[in-house]
């Protein structure tokens, strides 16, 4: 298998379609023959980050690079940024408003879940500019 690069756009405020990119990536990984548990880890991590792009930022872009050794996914948004990354990473911490909670999100578990399922996780953020999350999962 050669290196495969995939790109997805995530629309702002589109709660219905949020998760479409993660689902597509999941199916591509399946077609490429990756192990089911590995695929589930990637799918969950990218889905959590994609939902965050829709509920906390104004959408953005997702770029995935797939090699036989690992899967790297970069999610970049032009949202408000994260003021305190350490706090945001805490289980249970959420700034989600009531309307987002009534949709089943805002437990403050997304970023901790991403951390749990990935081998490498990097967050770069600037207030008023946006957030870029880079994830890497090894194919062991």
């Amino acid at each position, binding site marked *: 298998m050669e290196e495969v690069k995939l790109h997805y756009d995530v629309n702002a405020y589109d709660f219905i379609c949020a998760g479409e990119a993660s689902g597509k990536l999941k199916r591509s990984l399946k077609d490429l023959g990756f192990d089911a548990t590995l695929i589930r880890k990637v799918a969950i991590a990218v889905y959590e980050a994609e939902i965050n792009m829709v509920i906390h930022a104004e959408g953005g872009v997702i770029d995935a690079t797939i090699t036989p050794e690992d899967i790297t996914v970069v999610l970049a948004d032009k949202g408000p940024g994260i003021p305190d990354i350490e706090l945001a990473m805490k289980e249970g911490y959420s700034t989600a408003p009531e309307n987002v909670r009534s*949709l*089943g999100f805002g437990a403050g578990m997304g970023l*901790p879940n991403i951390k749990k399922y990935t081998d490498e996780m990097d967050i770069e953020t600037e207030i008023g500019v946006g957030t870029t999350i880079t994830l890497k999962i090894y194919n062991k």
Partner: protein
Amino acid sequence: MTVKEIVEILEGTIVYGEDFLDREVHTACGSDMMSDVLAYVKEQAVLLTGLVNPQVVRTAEMMDMKCIVFVRGKSPDIGMINLAEDRDIVLIKTDLEMFTSCGRLYAKGLRGGSGK
């Protein structure tokens, strides 16, 4: 346990997936918060929820879940049904509440994601 047994135990109805009644399931998870569901990467076959929106189906998709049970008489809309059809996920609805639904299934042998 099979999907058919779940329908019987919960006195429920199949919204989508009549053809998959023989599917075997052993584990389940009940929650209205999707990130709680996503916190366990272990195979979980059934999602019980009182939440009705497309992200419920997408969460089940990411988790490779086979079946979603909507409790408290909630009904998925046509968009959700189409999504479930495309992702090959059975949809069941029951008038029972969450606590009762989980309790009945547990009593009949279905277990949580940790196997307990």
